[in-house]
């Protein structure tokens, strides 16, 4: 009987020991990561200087309508009359007619500013983030059209499924207080 009691005590002692070790281990993990953890949450964003406008953003997002939309950095835009982000590869005429447009949903609006300049604005409710205009603008223009994750739509998945499919590694986690990477004229 005494032996049995002894056994129970030993088992309890071991259990307590393991329990303490687990608690200490959890504490250790927290200590290890807390040194460089930050209070600020992170969100996903596309580095527009790495983006190749492959079109994956339109199809790989978990949302039915992608959280990625085209953004226009007006400061970089040349306000061209002939915009290859706006017009299809071989336009019949240089005007706003649907058959001349590159955008599959007609999300780019072209408005006359002053001769010979035109302003291009993105209608985000129509944009699907396919990046066709981005490719056109990068190839022939200043590259003022670029794709960005729009954070009013993004669910901020732990593993962004577009990031997993991105061919150029353009997706990265950025701090939530600086959630956009807007193209600038003076970028090296």
């Amino acid at each position: 009987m005494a032996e049995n009691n002894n056994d129970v005590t030993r088992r309890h002692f071991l259990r307590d020991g393991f329990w303490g070790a687990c608690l200490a281990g959890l504490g250790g993990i927290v200590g290890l990561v807390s040194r460089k953890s930050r209070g600020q949450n992170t969100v996903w964003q596309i580095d527009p200087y790495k983006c190749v406008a492959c079109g994956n953003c339109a199809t790989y997002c978990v949302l039915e309508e992608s959280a990625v939309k085209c953004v226009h950095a007006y400061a970089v835009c040349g306000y061209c009359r002939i915009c290859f982000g706006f017009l299809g590869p071989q336009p019949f005429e240089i005007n706003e007619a649907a058959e001349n447009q590159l955008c599959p949903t007609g999300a780019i609006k072209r408005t006359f500013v002053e001769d010979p300049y035109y302003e291009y604005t993105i209608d985000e409710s129509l944009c699907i983030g396919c990046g066709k205009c981005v490719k056109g603008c990068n190839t022939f223009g200043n590259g003022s059209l670029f794709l960005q994750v729009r954070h009013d739509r993004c669910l901020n998945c732990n593993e962004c499924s577009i990031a997993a499919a991105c061919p150029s590694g353009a997706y990265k986690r950025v701090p939530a207080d600086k959630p956009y990477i807007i193209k600038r004229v003076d970028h090296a």
Partner: protein
Amino acid sequence: MARLKYITICIFCPLILSCVAAAVERFPPPDFESGYIQPTPTTPQPRQSFYEYIDAAVLFAALCLSSYLVLKKRNRRAIFVMMVFSLLYFGFWRKGCVCPIGASQNVILSIFDRDYAVPVVVVIFFLLPLVFTLFFGRTFCAAVCPLGAIQDLVLIKPVTVPSWLESGLRLFAYLYLGMAILFAATGSAFIICRYDPFVSFFRLSGNFNILVLGACFLIVGLFIGRPYCRFICPYGVILRQLSRLSRWRVTITPDECVKCRLCEDSCPFGAIREPTANWPANVYNIAKKRLTFLILLLPVLVFIGGLVGSGLNPVTSRTHATVRLAERVYQEENGQVEGATDASTAFRATGKDVEELYEEASGIREKFGFGGWFLGGFAGLVIGLKLVGLSVWRQRADYEADRASCLACGRCFEYCPREHVRLKKIKEGISKT
């Protein structure tokens, strides 16, 4: 002016085409004379970090309440309501992200990747359920985890899974945990998130294949209680081990077991252990020999597992995008494949050296070779310990909930006549007869 631009484009087309994707200022921004004011791009802000802390607070409150309901109140109905709340809040409202199961990968990545700083809220999400499990058992699984809740809700006709099948299938969860750690540590992928079967339901959109996978789990879950929790969940594996050591735990009876056998079939998760007979003395020597053999087998299994895990590195390392890219570029360079992928085109556009890429990829592959020892060794250890565990005789006098497998759902409470005495539904003394 406009015509000039047109001509310029035509002349420089071939030249411009050669530098794809670079943002060059080909046309200087105009000076407007009509008083046009240049708009700035809108930047809708993400959810404020402040709200993430509210989520963490809700998690803490939910864990406290769940532990109270399971251990103190012992009320299945209240646990059920709590579970529905968690499903609605953490599942459908918060769309399943951040969840403690996935957060474990962020913590692992943060340990191994110098550049990745894990947000504090994610650490809290990872840690809280573990600490609560150390104190109260798996009360997180019971009524806080939205993945558990959605499966628990659909369980209508539980079928008993034979224990050999249960233990066999459970090995997958250990392997899954090992793989998740390996892939997170190498920065390849967060496979727990990628193959989370229920998150598409929470978002009501997502990858079709995953949606089908989720539907399969729910259909299986009609008959087999919580299949994801029992056989797949990698976080559950950690919780199992911590739950073995928990300070307090779920007991079927509120005070003493009368061995009435009424609770025997009440658990849909096969977590109730029967009292054992006395140790049969005549097989003692054989059992002792077997146990010695299995303990000696343990290091062998670990070694074999490690060897296999490490040897599989050409396969496992392919989850890393850089390795995939390097393989593709190598094949293209050597004329083994025709054409180029988006990734290889994008790589060539950066103008980086191919050898540099190969070197980086082989570095990653080495990491996988090294990590494979741990993954395989871990798998060998789990199998070995399972065999040892099966050969150890444990004496039980009462019907007990298995510390590791019990999900603290509270279904068994009402089966116990002593519980009815506690609730004063029947008179004291009936059990004594």
